[in-house]
């Protein structure tokens, strides 16, 4: 996949976004851009505001200030058009355990307006790609944690989104499953040109060449690739940079 032309809109553009729960400010003037075809890590400790940000970008909450654009479409002004370009893997498991893999995927395909024929073809393709084709008729309850996550990724890709959001998708998975999932999503950026926002608090999921947005106490503390963050913190290791930057902020 070649890089998108300069004129192509970013997969996600967030500008001046703030959000409060009562008096507590969960997000404060957050702004960043996720280009198409790029794996971007949203790095932050628990409680940094990652889930609130996801809830705003998926329009479970509405942004009262700032703007959110998905592929150049304003989420607030044209929510249905913007959401059609978005695929999401939530932190919580959101598949129906009593339905089969295929039934879960057909449900999602219908919600996104795919015909039965289109849905069948895409389900087959996504399950093949994720090595889950032989489990299509199994109930989700019978799958391992890693397989369920892969089903959720397949589901998020069925309607061919341009932006994929994943909220701590590897939490609770073993090392092998984690690696498989991270590798697959990175592959999607390269082959499909997807813009990916991957929220995590696990430093070992970040590669040096990834774009990183460091969110801390509801604010963007730093943004850039791993090397830029290390340079900013004047350390060699991204883990150290994370600790140093967040501690400096806390102090």
């Amino acid at each position, binding site marked *: 996949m070649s890089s*998108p*032309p300069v004129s*192509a809109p970013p997969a996600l553009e967030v500008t001046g976004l703030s959000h409060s*729960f*009562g008096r507590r400010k*969960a997000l404060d003037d957050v702004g960043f851009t996720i280009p198409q075809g790029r794996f971007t890590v949203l790095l932050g400790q628990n409680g940094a505001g990652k*889930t*609130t940000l996801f809830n705003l970008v*998926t*329009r*479970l*909450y*509405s942004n*009262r200030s700032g703007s959110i654009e998905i*592929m150049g479409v304003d989420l607030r002004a044209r*929510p*249905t*058009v*913007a*959401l*059609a*370009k*978005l695929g*999401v893997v*939530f*932190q*919580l*498991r*959101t*598949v*129906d355990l*009593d*339905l089969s893999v295929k*039934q879960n995927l*057909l*449900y*999602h*395909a*219908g*919600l*996104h*307006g*795919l*015909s039965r024929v289109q849905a069948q073809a895409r389900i087959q393709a996504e399950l093949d790609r994720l090595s889950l084709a032989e489990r299509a008729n199994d109930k989700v309850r019978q799958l391992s944690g890693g397989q369920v996550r892969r089903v959720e990724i397949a589901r998020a890709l069925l*309607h*061919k989104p*341009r932006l994929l959001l994943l909220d701590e998708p590897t939490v609770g998975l073993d090392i092998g499953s984690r690696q498989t999932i991270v590798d697959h999503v990175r592959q999607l950026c390269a082959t499909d*040109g997807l813009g990916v926002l991957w929220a995590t608090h696990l430093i070992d999921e970040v590669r040096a060449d990834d774009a990183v947005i460091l969110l801390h106490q509801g604010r963007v503390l730093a943004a850039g690739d791993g090397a830029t963050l290390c340079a900013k913190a004047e350390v060699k290791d991204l883990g150290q940079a994370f600790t140093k930057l967040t501690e400096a902020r806390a102090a």
Partner: protein
Amino acid sequence: MSASLAGDDRLALEQHGLAHYWRAARVIIGREALRFIHQRGRFIAALVRPLVWLFIFAAGFRSVLGVSIQPPYVTYVLYEVYITPGLCGMILLFAGMQSSLAMVYDREMGSMRVLLVSPLPRWYLLVCKLGAGVLVAVLQVYVFLAIAWFWEIQPPLIGYFTVLPALLIAGFMLGSLGLLLSSVIRQLENFAGVMNFVIFPMFFASSALYPLWRVRESSVLLWQLCWANPFSHAVELIRFALYGQIEPTALAVTVGCSLLFLAIAIFGYDPARGFMQIKRGS
């Protein structure tokens, strides 16, 4: 990339055509039906409850509580006959609250998010979800009526057809109430309160178990409460429709309450204004 953008536009058009609405409705209803099939216990419980009332409660009270001639009945009727429409309402009431419980559960578990993130207007998604629950509930009512037929609760045959719109409207009202409650209930644990403060008062302070004129003889205040209870009107709508008649007041109140409850529920689920906004992590 321009070709890809054109593809995106085509996809958006395709996704926002009428077919998209239809496909979404179909899968939401299909999912509710599958869920229902998988939860046989729920189906049995939904039937056993009114049947216990019919076979035991009503049989026990038939000698004490014979009901004199009153519309829509043209003769004296047995107590079992009188309470059958109320028990149909009971099925719809419990189903409405059950789907409310399911929605709170779905929200806590996350699967409600999949629905709400779909690229369709939120009101439409909620109405589909509501409609799916109502269809399943109405099916349960028909199974109940079929069993009741063998218990000699035999309204005219035409009544089985004319009661359908009444059941749909009443189911819609009670489902909307459930939807409304699901938008304001913060956690699953609070659901016990719904049982105590919504289901029981609604059912007992209504015309489901006793005619309102009898209640009036006992207490005017209680009669006023029963009359103000939308569930009474839903039951009367079903009662008259089961005998091929329309009760205009009941129809107006039930339709009006459906729209009111639905409007508040949609407000509750609106990301910009609703109650979701103030519930962190909901």
